[in-house]
């Protein structure tokens, strides 16, 4: 991976939503949707964010683009802090980070033709003549595998996969360094999913794009990720390379997540589910480690102290008192050893 300035760096990012009730809309509680999240994405790299629904991964994606204003922390795009920029100062940075949304039926304006949709972002930054606009749009459509006779069609005339290709073409139009892809294939048929994922991978190779890829589908994640961040209730609990995580997850939650993913081979026995119960309410998260009520390894310290992300020998970061004890604790079990192959991959 490139050692230059990361395309995206997020530091201690936080988002709290107030829960309001009653006549005077008093804030009665807060949801800590994203809580002290830090990571970087290098040029040409894919960082996947995985987690159950409600863990804050989509909020995180929107925070990165400042579609939602963060409550705390910093966002750095190519080294520049964009967290506090006003709308006008933010615009140049919008060219660097683009987004592909989950639902290709809702993310395209039904009243605009494909041509207008894909070049709209370009038109926001400089004037395009009619002929130039058409030419740009045709190039973009060709790049995502759509025929140029689609230019005058409207979104409702496309299939789901074709619409997502349009959304990708629109994201590409500004030649961004990073694309935030929020579950870009989860609304698509399985047969189309692979085509769209392959398109994303081809584009990454061609343009050196970085992806912040948000997904709950571990099959998809294994296919596209370089590194993976596992989120639970607004926090990153494990950040590791794909190979390290899939070979030997360290955090008990990552372990459970991987064990829960279906394996398309009936001969392989399912691992016994190690996690019971529901995700706790983010309005009233458990004290200490948010995972402790469901964790098979929980010890007394987990109930009182929030674990910090601690580095393991192989370079992964894990927030767990048991598996990755920090110096303050008298660790009860040693961190699991990792293969040297995983170490080399990092």
């Amino acid at each position, binding site marked *: 991976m490139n050692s230059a300035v990361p395309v995206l760096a997020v530091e201690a990012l936080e988002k709290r939503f107030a829960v309001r009730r009653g006549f005077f809309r008093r804030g009665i509680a807060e949801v800590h949707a994203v809580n002290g999240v830090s990571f970087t994405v290098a040029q040409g790299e894919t960082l996947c964010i995985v987690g159950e629904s409600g863990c804050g991964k989509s909020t995180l994606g*929107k925070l990165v*683009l400042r*579609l939602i204003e963060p409550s705390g922390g910093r966002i750095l795009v190519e080294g520049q802090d964009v967290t506090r920029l006003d*709308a006008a100062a933010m*615009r140049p940075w*919008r*060219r660097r*980070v*683009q*987004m592909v*949304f*989950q*639902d290709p039926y*809702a*993310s*395209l*304006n*039904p*009243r*605009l*033709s494909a041509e207008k949709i894909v070049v*709209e*972002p370009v038109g*926001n*930054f400089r004037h395009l003549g009619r002929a130039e606009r058409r030419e740009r749009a045709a190039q973009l459509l060709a790049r995502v*595998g*759509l*025929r140029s006779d*689609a*230019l*005058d*069609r*409207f979104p*409702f*005339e*496309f*299939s789901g*996969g*074709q619409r997502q*290709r349009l*959304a990708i073409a*629109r994201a590409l139009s*500004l030649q961004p360094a990073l694309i935030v892809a929020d579950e870009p294939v989860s609304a698509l048929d399985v047969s189309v999913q*692979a*085509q769209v*994922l*392959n*398109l994303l*991978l081809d584009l990454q190779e061609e343009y050196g794009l970085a992806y912040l890829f948000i997904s709950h589908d571990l*099959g*998809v994640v*294994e*296919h596209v990720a370089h590194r993976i961040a596992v989120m639970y209730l607004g926090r990153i609990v494990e950040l590791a390379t794909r190979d390290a995580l899939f070979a030997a997850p360290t955090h008990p939650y990552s372990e459970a997540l991987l064990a829960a993913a279906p394996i398309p081979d009936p001969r392989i026995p399912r691992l016994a589910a190690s996690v019971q119960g529901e995700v706790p309410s983010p309005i009233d998260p458990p004290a200490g480690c948010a995972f402790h009520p469901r964790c098979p390894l929980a010890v007394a310290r987990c109930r009182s102290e929030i674990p910090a992300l601690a580095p393991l020998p192989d370079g992964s970061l894990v927030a767990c008192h048991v598996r990755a004890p920090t110096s303050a604790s008298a660790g009860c079990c040693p961190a699991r050893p990792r293969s040297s192959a995983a170490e080399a991959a990092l």
Partner: protein
Amino acid sequence: MRRASSPMSAAPRNPSNVPAILLQGEPGSLDGRALRSRRGLRRFVRRHPTICLGAGIIAVMIGLALAAPLFAGDALSMDPSRRLQAPSAALWFGTDNLGRDVFARTVFGARVSLLVGFSVAIGAVLGGLIIGLVAGYSRRFDGAVMRVMDGLMAMPSILLAIALVSLTHGGVGVVIVAIVVPEVPRAVRLVRSVVLGAREQPYVEAAVAGGARTGTILVRHILPSTIAPLVVQATYVCANAILTEAGLSFLGAGIPPEIPSWGNMISSSRLFLGIAPWTVFAPGICLTVVVLAVNLLGDGMRDLLDPRLARKF
């Protein structure tokens, strides 16, 4: 997981049961470009019969109202000896209780009624659109603007008109303002509710992410979704304004009763409905036809703005 990708550019799914050949419309078929040639005009009429019918009726009505002095005769002179006469070859729509020619009054009445109806509809819709867009899109002004609108809505138009007329010299302009002011908040509420919904659409978020300025987002992505409900609202406001004007002139707060409008013709003749129905029916049918025409035009406009429907014709 990585598979050879199949060609994705196959023909799109047919969204309805329309034969596929009908979907291959020419580009740009849904805008005014089609109107440039005579052939294009014919095609426009064939594709949008409701717009043409509605606009045609309205155009004829306006034309007749403007040309009234040339053919309609005397709308003001009274002749008690021939009052409440039934329609005949000489008096097409008969006479009213003061012996005035109902045909002449209906034609002249169109001037006031159409002016009030269309001005109020346009004024209320434009005011509602601008204020509603601001209130719906900016969280900062929303609360304040909507409380002011609630205050205006609480004001009965009759009371406002009486106050305005006694402060000024009266006239059609004052009547229009008096009816527009309480109608604007209704349009504002409508626009605001649509904007609040549209603002949360992912395609609006996508536009923000694409670097669009607020004005672009409002005009290109949010405004179009307000058109359809506003057109419906405008047709209702138009008809309602014609009737409100009648109520005002009945109370003496609007146009003087001797100057005919469809509204004051209906309200002053309603006592004679049993013995001389033509006095009410003549302006009543005209009013109905105008409202119908405005509705047809509105429906057609809505379809014209919907790309889904535009392709099917």
